C-alpha cells in the first residue's frame, strides 16, 4: 500500500545569526492513507516545521517529500494536493463565511451557483448552517475553527494538515472538538496529519503518533505501543507520567541499565516480597487516583498512582510504604534520546 505522505531523510536547516539551527534533523516517515497521524512534541521540537514542509510553506534543505507517490519537495503550496487548517484559522476577514469556504472552488473557476451549493453542504457537515452570510469577525473561536475546517475540506484533498487547531479553545470545547474531528476523519476516510504538544490529545485521537524531540523523530507507534513501550527516555517522560530509572538502581531492580515503570502499575503492600520501600514525601489528589511521591534511600524517588476506588485510606506524608509491581510492568528502554541528555 503506497504511503499517503512520505518524508525521506528530510532536514530543515537554517542560520540564525552565528548559529546553525537544525529545526528538522534527518526525519524519515511514512504515513498511511486514511490514517489519523499525529506529530507530537514540545515547542521547538520540529513538528510544526515538518508539517509546514509537507504543506509547502517551508522548503527542505535536504531530503525529499512525496504525497501519494508524487515528489512535491519544491512545489509551491497551491500545486500540492493537501489543505491546511491553520493554528489561527486564517479566515479571510473581508469575505463572508460562505465566500471563505468556497474560496478554493472560486480559484479553480467553478461557477458561483455550484460553489455556493457545495459550500453550504460543507457548512452542514461542520454544523454551522446559519453562518453563511456572517463575517469571521462575528464568530466565536470554535465556530471559526469549523469554518476553517469546511474551507479546507471543500476541494476534497487527499491529505488534511492540522496545525494545533484546538490550542486556542477552552478545555470543554477542546474535548468536544477532539471527538468531532475523530468522527469526521473516520467518516471522510482521508488522511489527517495533526500537530499538537498535548499528549492526552495525541493518545486519544490518533491511529499512530510520531514523537519529535529537538528536530529528530524519536519514535513512531500506535498510542498503546507508545505508552507501554516507549523507545527512548524522552518518549517515556513526555507521554504520560513515568518512573525512569537507570544505572545501578535499575540493574538491581530489573537487571537492565535503563527501565521505565508507569505509576499506575505500582501497588502498595506489605513488606514481604516488596520490590522496594521508602517514605511518602508528597500526596496529590487527582480525583480518580492519589499520586504518591515515595523517597527511597537506595535510589531516586518513585511516583505511585493509587486508585481512590480501592477503599483503602491513603498513607499520610512521612509514613513508610512498601512498593510492589508485576515483572511485566517493567519496560526496558532501548535507545538513547536525541541530543542525549547526560
Amino acid at each position, binding site marked *: 500500500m503506497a504511503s499517503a505522505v512520505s518524508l525521506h531523510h528530510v532536514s530543515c536547516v537554517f542560520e540564525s545569526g552565528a548559529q546553525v539551527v537544525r529545526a528538522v534533523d534527518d526525519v524519515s516517515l511514512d504515513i498511511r492513507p486514511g490514517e489519523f497521524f499525529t506529530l507530537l512534541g514540545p515547542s521547538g521540537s520540529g513538528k510544526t516545521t515538518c508539517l509546514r514542509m509537507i*504543506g*509547502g510553506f517551508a522548503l527542505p534543505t535536504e531530503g525529499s517529500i512525496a504525497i501519494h507517490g508524487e515528489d512535491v519537495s519544491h512545489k509551491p503550496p*497551491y500545486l500540492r494536493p493537501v489543505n*491546511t487548517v*491553520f493554528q489561527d484559522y486564517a479566515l*479571510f*476577514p473581508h469575505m463572508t463565511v460562505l465566500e471563505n469556504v468556497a474560496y478554493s472552488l*472560486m480559484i479553480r473557476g467553478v461557477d458561483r451557483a455550484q460553489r455556493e451549493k457545495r459550500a453550504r453542504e460543507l457548512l452542514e457537515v461542520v454544523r454551522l448552517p446559519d453562518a453563511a452570510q456572517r463575517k469571521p469577525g462575528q464568530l466565536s473561536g470554535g465556530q471559526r475553527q469549523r469554518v476553517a475546517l469546511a474551507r479546507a475540506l471543500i476541494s476534497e484533498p487527499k491529505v488534511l494538515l492540522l496545525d494545533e487547531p484546538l490550542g486556542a479553545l477552552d478545555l470543554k470545547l477542546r474535548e468536544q472538538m477532539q471527538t468531532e474531528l475523530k468522527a469526521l476523519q473516520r467518516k471522510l476516510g482521508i488522511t489527517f496529519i495533526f500537530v499538537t504538544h498535548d499528549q492526552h490529545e495525541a493518545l486519544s485521537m490518533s491511529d499512530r503518533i510520531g514523537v519529535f524531540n529537538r528536530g529528530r523523530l524519536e519514535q513512531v507507534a500506535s498510542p498503546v505501543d507508545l505508552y507501554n513501550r516507549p523507545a527512548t527516555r524522552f518518549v517515556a517522560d513526555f507521554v504520560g507520567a513515568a518512573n525512569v530509572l537507570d544505572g545501578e538502581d535499575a540493574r538491581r531492580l530489573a537487571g537492565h541499565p535503563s527501565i521505565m515503570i508507569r505509576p499506575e502499575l505500582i501497588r502498595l503492600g506489605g513488606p514481604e516480597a516488596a520490590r522496594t520501600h521508602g517514605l511518602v514525601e508528597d500526596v496529590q489528589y487527582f480525583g480518580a487516583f492519589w499520586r504518591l511521591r515515595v523517597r527511597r534511600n537506595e535510589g531516586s524517588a518513585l511516583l505511585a498512582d493509587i486508585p481512590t476506588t480501592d477503599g483503602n485510606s491513603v498513607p499520610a506524608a512521612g509514613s513508610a510504604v512498601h512498593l510492589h509491581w508485576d515483572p511485566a510492568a517493567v519496560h526496558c528502554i532501548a535507545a538513547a534520546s536525541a541530543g542525549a541528555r547526560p
Partner: protein
Amino acid sequence: MPSKMTASAPAASPWLKLATLWGVLFLHVPLALIILYAFSSEDKSYVFPPPGLTTAWFAVAWERHDVWEAIKLSGQVALVATAIAIVLGTLAAGGLARTKFFGREAISLMLILPIALPGVVSGIALRSAFHTLEIPFSFWTIVIGHATFCVVVVYNNAVARLRRISPSLLEASMDLGANAFQTFRYVLLPQLGSALLAGGLLAFALSFDEVIVTTFTAGQQTTLPIWMLQELIRPRQRPVTNVVAVFIIALTFIPIVAAYWLTRSDEDSHQR
C-alpha cells in the same frame, strides 16, 4: 497593546489645561480668521473686525482664469505623482515590512530623506540634476519631485497595515490553490486597500499643497501654491486670495480626515 498609562486619567491642574487650550487656539484661530475674511466686504480684507459680510468675492474668484489654470495644473500633478507614489510605496512596503536583511535600515532611511531634508536642499538638488542633464522644466519635472517625497507617505501607511496582516492569511490562500498573483488580487489587495487609499489621499494633499520643492522644479509653470505665493508677495486682489485660501483649506481638509478615518485602527498607542 497593553495600556501604559493608568486607566483613569488623573485630574490636570488648571494651569495645564489653560496652557493646552491656548496652544490649541494658537493653532486654529488664524485659520478661522481666514475663513471669516473670505466673507469680508472690505477690499483691504485684512481689516479687523470686517465691516460687513458678503459672498460676492466667491463669484469674482470663480471668474479668474489664472486661478483655474493653477488648480488644473496642481490637480494633474497631484494625481500622477500620487499614482507613482502608490506603486513605489507599496512595493517598498512589501519588501521592507516584515523582512530582515542587511541594508534594510539604510533603504528605509533613503525613503524618508526627501521629507527629512529641508525642502530647499531637495529642491535645489533636483534643480541641479535637471540643469546638469539639460532637462527643461516641464509637467514631468514637477511630477518627479512630488512623487519622490510622496512615496514615504504611502509607504508608512502600507507598512503599518502590512504589519497587522497575519502572514498565515497569505499561506492559507496559497494552500487553497491560489498562486501568487491570485493571492495578491483576492486576499492581499482587499486587506491593503483602505491603507493604500489613505496613503494616496495624504499624498494627494501633500502634492497639491507643496510649494518649496515645486518652485525649484516648475520653471515658469504655476501650480496653485505658486499662484498663492505670488499673491503673497505681490497681491493683486486680496479678497480673491482669501476665497482661494478657503477653497484650499476645504480641499485638503477632506482627504486628511478621510485618510485618518480609514486607518484609525492601524495606529497603535496614539489614540488609545
